[in-house]
């Protein structure tokens, strides 16, 4: 590939060694005006790219995801974030499809982000890292597709922030994806979601360790995660799972220990999160989500974003998702219909809230599988004629 240095395995950071990284040799002008060049993009692939190169699926991860979609994450040793949906025989069947996922720009799993060392100062970027946007993330991943010499994708798919990337991708590269599957997302971040992100950021910034060298704002990041985690669930889901159940005790202890199971659960979520996530990445990625407003990019008319696309859209929302409610997903559908695009939409019944797309929700997985399958068959039938 011209201009691309190719693919390196390198030992810059002991934690993220041995993970696939593309050093992008071209310069990328960010939305904020700054230009970055020679920056790493960490990625992972699953399955095999076929000879026709028509079975590639680009999956975009959400706020706290990474490139390790399925199987065991080699860094965290935990299950990949989309293990329910991606893998051999699963909805996004890696026996059939070649799944690509890159750690987003601003992330902390090997891609260019605030955790990386600034080559000019030899110090960690931290908050000197440029503010990035969803558009910047998508542009960076386009370099990866060029490097892999993939001209046409079977599908672009993602939930939450991943869905935003799907929308951005299809609006920028209207001919590149045969199908686009934005899940549980929005075309422009709502005031409520900006507010919730700001809450998380302020929790991090309120931690006295934040911005101190060699210290991590773990407490702040944990609180941010706890608050965010509540927004990924639903009232009904929480009530059914936890109710007022007490944690390993018969009665209230009249203290501020975690008496209730829900408290203990949230504390655990916060505590484990800080082991795998960088606080500054959290700031940068939530900022990118807040800045996302595809409608504004097209002078207030969202349907113009999709005017040129031939991609087949399938928008999916979940009934109990109050973070990216069905109404916001429907706005995407309406805009697509307004420009005559090919669009299907379904709201999946689930009490698991926004997190439904990551969990074992059989109706969702079945629908996703069947949609992808129909696209795959259509492409292969067309070729046969």
């Amino acid at each position: 590939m011209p201009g691309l240095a190719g693919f390196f395995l390198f030992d810059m950071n002991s934690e993220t060694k041995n993970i696939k990284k593309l050093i992008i040799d071209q310069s990328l002008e960010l939305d904020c005006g700054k230009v970055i060049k020679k920056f790493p993009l960490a990625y992972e692939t699953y399955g095999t790219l076929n000879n026709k190169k028509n079975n590639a699926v680009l999956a975009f991860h959400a706020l706290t995801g990474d490139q390790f979609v399925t199987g065991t994450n080699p860094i965290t040793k935990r299950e990949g974030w989309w293990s329910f949906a991606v893998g051999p025989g699963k909805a996004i069947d890696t026996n059939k499809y070649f799944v690509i996922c890159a750690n987003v720009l601003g992330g902390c799993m090997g891609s260019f982000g605030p955790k990386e060392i600034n080559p000019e100062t030899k110090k960690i970027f931290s908050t000197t890292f440029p503010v990035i946007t969803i558009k910047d993330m998508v542009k960076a991943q386009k370099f990866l597709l060029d490097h892999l010499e993939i001209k046409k994708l079977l599908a672009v798919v993602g939930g939450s922030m991943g869905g935003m990337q799907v929308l951005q991708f299809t609006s920028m590269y209207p001919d590149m994806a045969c199908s686009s599957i934005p899940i549980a997302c929005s075309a422009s971040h709502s005031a409520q979601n900006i507010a919730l992100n700001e809450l998380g950021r302020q929790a991090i910034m309120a931690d006295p360790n934040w911005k101190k060298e060699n210290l991590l704002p773990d407490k702040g990041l944990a609180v941010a995660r706890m608050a965010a985690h509540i927004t990924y669930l639903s009232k009904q889901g929480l009530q059914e799972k936890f109710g007022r159940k007490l944690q390993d005790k018969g009665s209230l202890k009249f203290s501020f220990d975690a008496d209730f199971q829900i408290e203990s659960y949230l504390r655990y979520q916060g505590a484990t999160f800080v082991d795998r996530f960088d606080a500054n990445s959290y700031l940068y990625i939530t900022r990118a989500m807040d800045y996302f407003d595809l409608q504004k990019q097209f002078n207030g008319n969202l349907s113009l974003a999709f005017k040129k696309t031939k991609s087949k859209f399938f928008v999916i929302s979940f009934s109990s998702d109050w973070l990216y409610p069905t109404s916001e997903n429907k706005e995407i559908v309406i805009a697509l219909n307004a420009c005559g695009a090919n669009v299907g939409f379904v709201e999946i019944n689930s009490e698991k809230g926004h997190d439904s797309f990551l969990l074992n929700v059989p109706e969702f997985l079945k629908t996703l599988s069947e949609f992808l399958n129909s696209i795959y068959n259509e492409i292969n039938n067309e070729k046969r004629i």
Partner: protein
Amino acid sequence: MKKEFKVISQIIKKNKRVLDIGCGDGTLMEYLKQNQQNDVRGLEPKKNLVQKCIARGLPVIEGDAEKELIQFPKKSFDYAVLSQTLQAFINPEEVLNQLLRIGKQTIVTIPNFGYWKIRMHLLFKGTMPITKNIPYEWYNTPNLHMCTIQDFVNFCNNKNIKIDKSMCLTNEKISEITTKNVRYKNIFSQLGIFLIE
């Protein structure tokens, strides 16, 4: 495929854009797409049926026509198709207005409440008619606004809706409705099929 769909597909010209409202499991859409190269879209309120359509590779939106039709631009489809559902809407007139706005032409089919068996049922049994086409009890029927072929023709005339084609089905047999035979057809047909604009 049922006869009604065959008649509808014969009305629809090749390579045209079709919106199927209440598309069910997508039988008609699939036929139109495969055999007539129609660019089809569907709207269906039942999740399980939407999923069947998605599995068949058909672009279907889950939604209720009374709320969703407003999103489609004026004349964005060559045909808007509404098969045997008009009577089930809370406000059929508004739905019909939306269809006429969205489609350059609209195909509407109605189960004919003027069919002789229905008349006989009410006359002799004195209970709400239940037939093969209208198999519901009065207390569980989704049909809120039953009408006859004559009612629909009168409606179109009163609202200045142009009827381009009108046909009827009786025991799988298709025939044309004309101004002369409409009274007769209103007694002997089970289903009316109208192409309007």
